[in-house]
């Protein structure tokens, strides 16, 4: 697979480390009433879809940026690559 890095252009997926579902960006509030349940779901449960999947890739052997890659899990086709920090900010995170 080739990941089209927003800053560096097309890079071999072997340069990256895969973390998992991009929902991991949305860490639950540890002070919430239901924090234990929310962290259980955050840490252990996954949607695991067959089709479009947003996921976190880390460019370990490159510029060490985190990317959100939208990829089809049935075909491996990558339709979108974003900087994870841009995605996080667009969801209201400060960094």
């Amino acid at each position, binding site marked *: 697979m080739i990941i089209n890095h927003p800053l560096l252009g097309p890079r071999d*997926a072997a340069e990256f480390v*895969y973390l998992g579902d991009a929902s991991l960006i949305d860490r639950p509030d540890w002070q919430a009433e239901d924090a234990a349940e929310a962290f*259980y779901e955050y840490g252990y449960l996954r949607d*695991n*879809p067959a089709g479009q999947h947003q996921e976190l890739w880390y460019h370990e052997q490159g510029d060490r940026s985190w990317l959100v890659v939208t990829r089809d*899990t049935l075909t491996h086709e990558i339709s979108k690559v974003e900087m994870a920090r841009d995605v996080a900010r667009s969801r209201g995170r400060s960094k």
Partner: protein
Amino acid sequence: MRYSAFKIFSQGLTGNKGWKPVWREPDPKPEYDIVIVGAGGHGLSTAYYLAKEYGMRNIAVVEKGWLGSGNIGRNTTIIRSNYLLPGNEPFYEMSLKLWEGLEQDFNYNAMVSQRSILNLVHSDAQRDAFIRRGNAMFLAGADAEYATAEQLRAELPFLNYDNARFPIKGGLFQRRGGTVRHDAVAWGYARGADERGVDIIQNCEVTGFDIENGKCRGVQTSRGAIRAKKVAVCVAGSSGRVMAMAGMRLPIESHVLQAFVTEGLKPVLPGVITFGAGHFYVSQSDKGGLVFGGDIDGYNTYAQRGNLPVVEDVAEGGMAIMPMIGRARLLRSWGGIMDMSMDGSPFIDKTHIEGLFFNGGWCYGGFKATPASGFCYAHLLAKGEPHPVATQMRLDRFKRGNLIDEKGQGNQPNLH
């Protein structure tokens, strides 16, 4: 029809005209006591043990494709019980004992070959860890044997003992481990279940679950609705997709594992050998091909094919321990989809939906577990409580903090 040497002889003399199909192709009935979703190794063995050990006959096994079309026919056929943790090891040892008696039990030649498995050791720390593992195996009644490098040199002279980076310092044998003809396992269980009245319904895709007031009453399929008192899902690899139809999210990601086979060679490998520094395991099939594999690709996928970086990594692992493999030509490679769970261990459990049961999360260890998985799942379905060797394989173990994490990697499925 009971198979025997006499049968083969007499059929040979009469033109082999007396052989009959080994299972029926029934249409689904409107209702069953138990509907098993997935006619793979685990689903068929579940049906077989339900019928044979627990006396239940009104069972259907529904399958989207043809029986045995999933991972039971895509794996590297290794059986072993060399696990460490008490949540796993008694279960896998039970499985190995079932393998040992399987062919007599279901009267089918599954070519069970206890040709041994050897896990190589490359450092002092690894030796300590493997000796600990061997002791854990003894505690569960399994066999284990530590061999020094000198002993190994005499027995397996072709390994690369003096690799500069990963010298071979010894290894942990399980002599009772080995290989099995994987398709024959599915066929043997299917035949045994069919003989006892189980309906195996192929080309029948489950498209939904009938859940009424928190109770599962049956399944919707491409061949109509089937009512059932209990629905037992057994579709490892596709667990995420199937259980999503019941509104469940699982502690599982789907990943692809690749496997490889070379052209047929003269006998060179006496048993199964695994590399302890990378991830590489190899055995030789009875046809002569070297069958080997390594790590999963490491990203979510439902495509039954992998990518080239892993091919390179596996080939490097092979060259590191067994340089002669470089002279063999690769014949085929393929991929299978694994339920990679959050701790690398499986699930055999009820769900929060009454009447809906789940078996999955086998990571890349499902084949060796086939007999015990079916046996324990059948026990759960028939008795309503887990089999004593599968009490820890629960879906809620992460919530309770009781992980079965053999490698201590944490909730990162692609590291297990």
